[in-house]
C-alpha cells in the first residue's frame, strides 16, 4: 500500500497540508480539524509534519471496542467509521503518534483515511515534504541527517516505538 511519507528536512511549516485536510473534512480552514499536524519549533528550526502511517498492526484498530476502525481493502488505509464510533476515545489513547483526534462537534474520533487513495495533504504540499509512496519505499531519504535533527529536537538516544 501507499502511505503519506513526511520529510522534516523539507517541511517549512507553511500549513498548506493542514488547511487542505481541514477543508476536506469540514469545508473550513480550522486546522484543529486536520488529520495531519505540523509542529514548528523555532529554537530548533524544526518543522515536523505528522500523520497516521496506517500501521500494519494498527493498535487503534485492534483496541477499538466498537469495531469502528477498519482497514480499507482498496487503499489499505486504517479508517474510522463515524457511524460506528461511539466516541470512547480509546483510540486516542492507543495511537503512539497522536494521529487521531476527537471531533468536538460530531463527538467521534477522526483520523487520516488517505482521502480514498489520493491524499489532499500531499496534493497541496508545495515543498514536497509530503510524498505518497509505497510503504516499503517510505522513509528511505537521508536517514542520517533526519535522525540527527530529530534527536537534537527530542534529546533522544534510544530507539523509538
Amino acid at each position, binding site marked *: 500500500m501507499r502511505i503519506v511519507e513526511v520529510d522534516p528536512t523539507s517541511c517549512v511549516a*507553511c500549513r498548506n497540508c493542514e488547511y487542505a485536510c481541514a477543508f476536506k473534512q469540514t469545508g473550513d480552514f480550522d486546522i484543529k480539524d486536520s488529520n495531519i499536524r505540523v509542529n514548528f519549533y523555532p529554537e530548533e528550526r524544526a518543522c515536523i509534519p505528522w500523520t497516521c502511517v496506517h500501521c500494519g498492526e494498527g493498535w487503534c484498530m485492534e483496541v477499538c471496542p466498537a469495531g469502528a476502525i477498519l482497514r480499507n481493502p482498496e487503499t489499505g488505509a486504517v479508517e474510522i467509521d463515524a457511524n460506528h464510533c461511539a466516541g470512547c476515545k480509546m483510540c486516542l489513547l492507543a495511537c503512539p503518534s497522536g494521529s487521531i483526534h476527537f471531533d468536538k462537534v460530531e463527538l467521534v474520533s477522526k483520523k487520516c483515511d488517505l482521502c480514498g487513495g489520493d491524499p489532499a495533504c500531499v496534493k497541496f*504540499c508545495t515543498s514536497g515534504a509530503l510524498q505518497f509512496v509505497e510503504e516499503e519505499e517510505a522513509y528511505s531519504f537521508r536517514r542520517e541527517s533526519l535522525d540527527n535533527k530529530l534527536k537534537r529536537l527530542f534529546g533522544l538516544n534510544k530507539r523509538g516505538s
Partner: protein
Amino acid sequence: MPERETVQTLCRMCDDRCAINVYLEDGKIVDIDGYKEHPWNRGRLCVKARAAVDMVYHPERLLKPLKRTKRGFEEIPLQQALDEIAERLLAIKDKHGARSISIWKGEAIGFAQEEDMARRFVHALGSPNYFSNDSMCYNGRYFGYRLVEGSWPVPDYENSRCVVIWGANPPHAHPNMTQMIMRARKAGAKLIVVDPRMSAIARQADLHADLKPGTDGALALGLIQQLIETQGYDREFVEHYTVGFTELAEYAKAFSPERVEEQTGVAAAVVRELARTIAAAAPRVAVYVGNGPEHHENGINNIRAVACLDAILGALDREGGNRLVEGFKANHLTLYDEIPLEHLGPIGADRFPVLYGFRQECHTMTGINTILSGEPYPIRAMILTAANPALTNPNTLKVREALGSLDLFVVRDLFMTPTAELADYVLPAASFLERVELHTHAKYQRITMTRKILKFPDVQDEYQFWHDLAHRLGIGEYFPWEDETELTRWILEPTDISLERAAAHPEGIEYTPIRYRKWEKEPFNTPSGKVEFSSQYLKDLGYPALPEYKPPAYLESPDPEYPFVLITGARKLIYYHSRFRNIKRFRTAIPGPEVELHPEDAAALGVADGDSIRITSRIGSVEVPAKIKSAVEILPGTLQMTHGWKEANVNLLTHDDRFDPISGFPLMKAVEVQVENV
C-alpha cells in the same frame, strides 16, 4: 447524472501560475486540483487555488456595472456604462489633452498580454501615462540585474549545489518554488537564506543571515570581498566577460567581515562561512532575490551588489547557477515603436529615467502628486484595472484623496474594494477562469495557454473591454481582433506554435530549448555587451557607477522619536496583496491583521500576545494586535506587518516621498516608527 468535465488551465490566484485541473458539473466549477504534467508545479498546489471556486461564485462578486450617483452606486447596463465612459474620456481629452488620461494596471491581471493591452490602449489614445504596480514590485530586481547582467536571470535550482534565497519567502510567496529548492537540497545543495526574519524558508536554511533591514548591499559586498580575498572567484569569467572588476574589487575592500557585522548585525564568522559555502559550491550557486531588498532607499545598488555575485562566482548562465532567459519571440501588443510618446513627458520619466527607459512606465507615486497638483500638467482621468492602491500604495490618505479628485475614475475589479469605492464607474472584471491568455514560465521557457471556462453575461474580459472602449473612442483600428482568442492567435503568428497546438498542451510547450553559457557566443544585453560591475549608463545619468552601499536612514541617522523599524509586506500563504480577505475559510485560518514583534520588545512595552498596539510613523498611525514571535524569528527593535488589510492598513504609515533614486521604489521595508501599548 450531472454532466462532468475536467479542463486544464493555469491558476492565477497568484503570479506563479500553477497548472490546475478544473472540475465542472453542468458547467459549474465544483473543484480544483493540481495538474501533474506541468513542470512548474508537478501537480502540487497551494490552498489558494481551490479558493478560486469560492472567488468566482462569491456572493459579493460584482456582476453588473455600477455608476456613482448622488444615491450611491447604482447598476447600469454595460453598453450605457461604456458609452458614458467614452463620452467623458473624449471630453477630458478635448479639454486637457490626451496625456491627461492614464491607465493603472494592477498585479491581479498579471504581466502578459493583459498588461500589453493596457499599454497599447493608452498609447493609441495618445497618452504616455501607463502606470502599474511595478512602480513598487519586480522592477527593483529587474533593474538591479538588468544593469549588471542585461536581464533578470532565473535560478537553476535543481542543478544547483547552493541555493541562496535573498529577501524572499517562497513557501508563502511562490509556493511551488519551494519544491524546487527542496529537490536541490535533497540532491545535496546547501540552502542559504538572507532575511531579517526567520521566514518559512529560513526554517530549513543551512545558514540564515538575519541581517538588519536594508543592509543587503553591505553583506553582498562583504561576500564579494571575501571571495576575492580568498581567491574564491572565477578569474577567467571575470576577465573575459565583465567590466569594472578592478573598481569593484577596490571598492569592496572596505567591506571586511567585521565591517559587515557592524553594518548588518550578521556575525563576521557567519559572513566568512557564507562566503566559504558559496565558493565551495561555485559555479553551481543559484540566487533568488525577492521583494525584501527592493523597498529601500538604497535598494537598486544593494540588488546590483547581489547580482555581481553571479559573475564573480562564474555562476551566470551556467548549470546550477542563474540562467539567462531566452524570450518567446511572439507578436507584442505595445506601441512604443509605432507611437513613441516620450516627448509628451511621461509622469516620473524625468526623475526616474531608468524606470521609463527600461520599462516605459510611469511612476505611480509621482502620478498621485500630479493628480493633486496638476503639475507639470493635469491628469484628470484614470482607468484602473485589477489594482487596489487605496490599500497597497504608500501613504493611503494621499492616494485616496488623489483618486477621489479625478474627473473620471473607472475601476475594473471582481469586488468592491476601497479603491473601487472611489470610482465613478465600477466595471465587473473577468477572473482568470474567464480569460484566454498566454503565459510564460521563464524557468522552463514554456508557454501555456489558459482557457475560458466560465462566462458571466455582463462581465467583460480585459480584451473585450479595451476593444469596446477603443471602438467608441475612434482608435478601434488598434483593436481589430474579434475577441481574445483571435488576439492570441495573432500573438502566436510569428512563432511555430499555433493556437490549436497551444490549446492542446495544458502542460505548456517549450518554445526554445534551455541553453547555458550563451555568453560564449552572444553578448550580454548591456551597453558594453559584458557584465557590468560598473555602469557607465548610470554614471551618465548622475548615479554612482559602482553598486555603492549607503546605510539605511534608520541606521545612519536614527530618529529617537521613532526608534523601531517596521518591515511591511511579508506575504501570508493564503492572502495575496489585498486579495482574498473575503474568502470565509481564509479568515478562519488568519482572522485579521497583526504585527510581528520580538518578545523582548513586547516585554518592554508590557504587551501580551494579541494585545492591541499603536504604531505611529511620521505620517500616520494604526492600531493592530501584536503577534509575539519567538526570539529567534525576528530581530529586536524590528516589526513586521503584512499589507492589504482594510482593518489595519499599514500603508497609512508608509512614505510616498522616500525612494530609491534609481528605480523610484518607495521605502516600505525599513519604516521608522514608534510603538505604544494601548
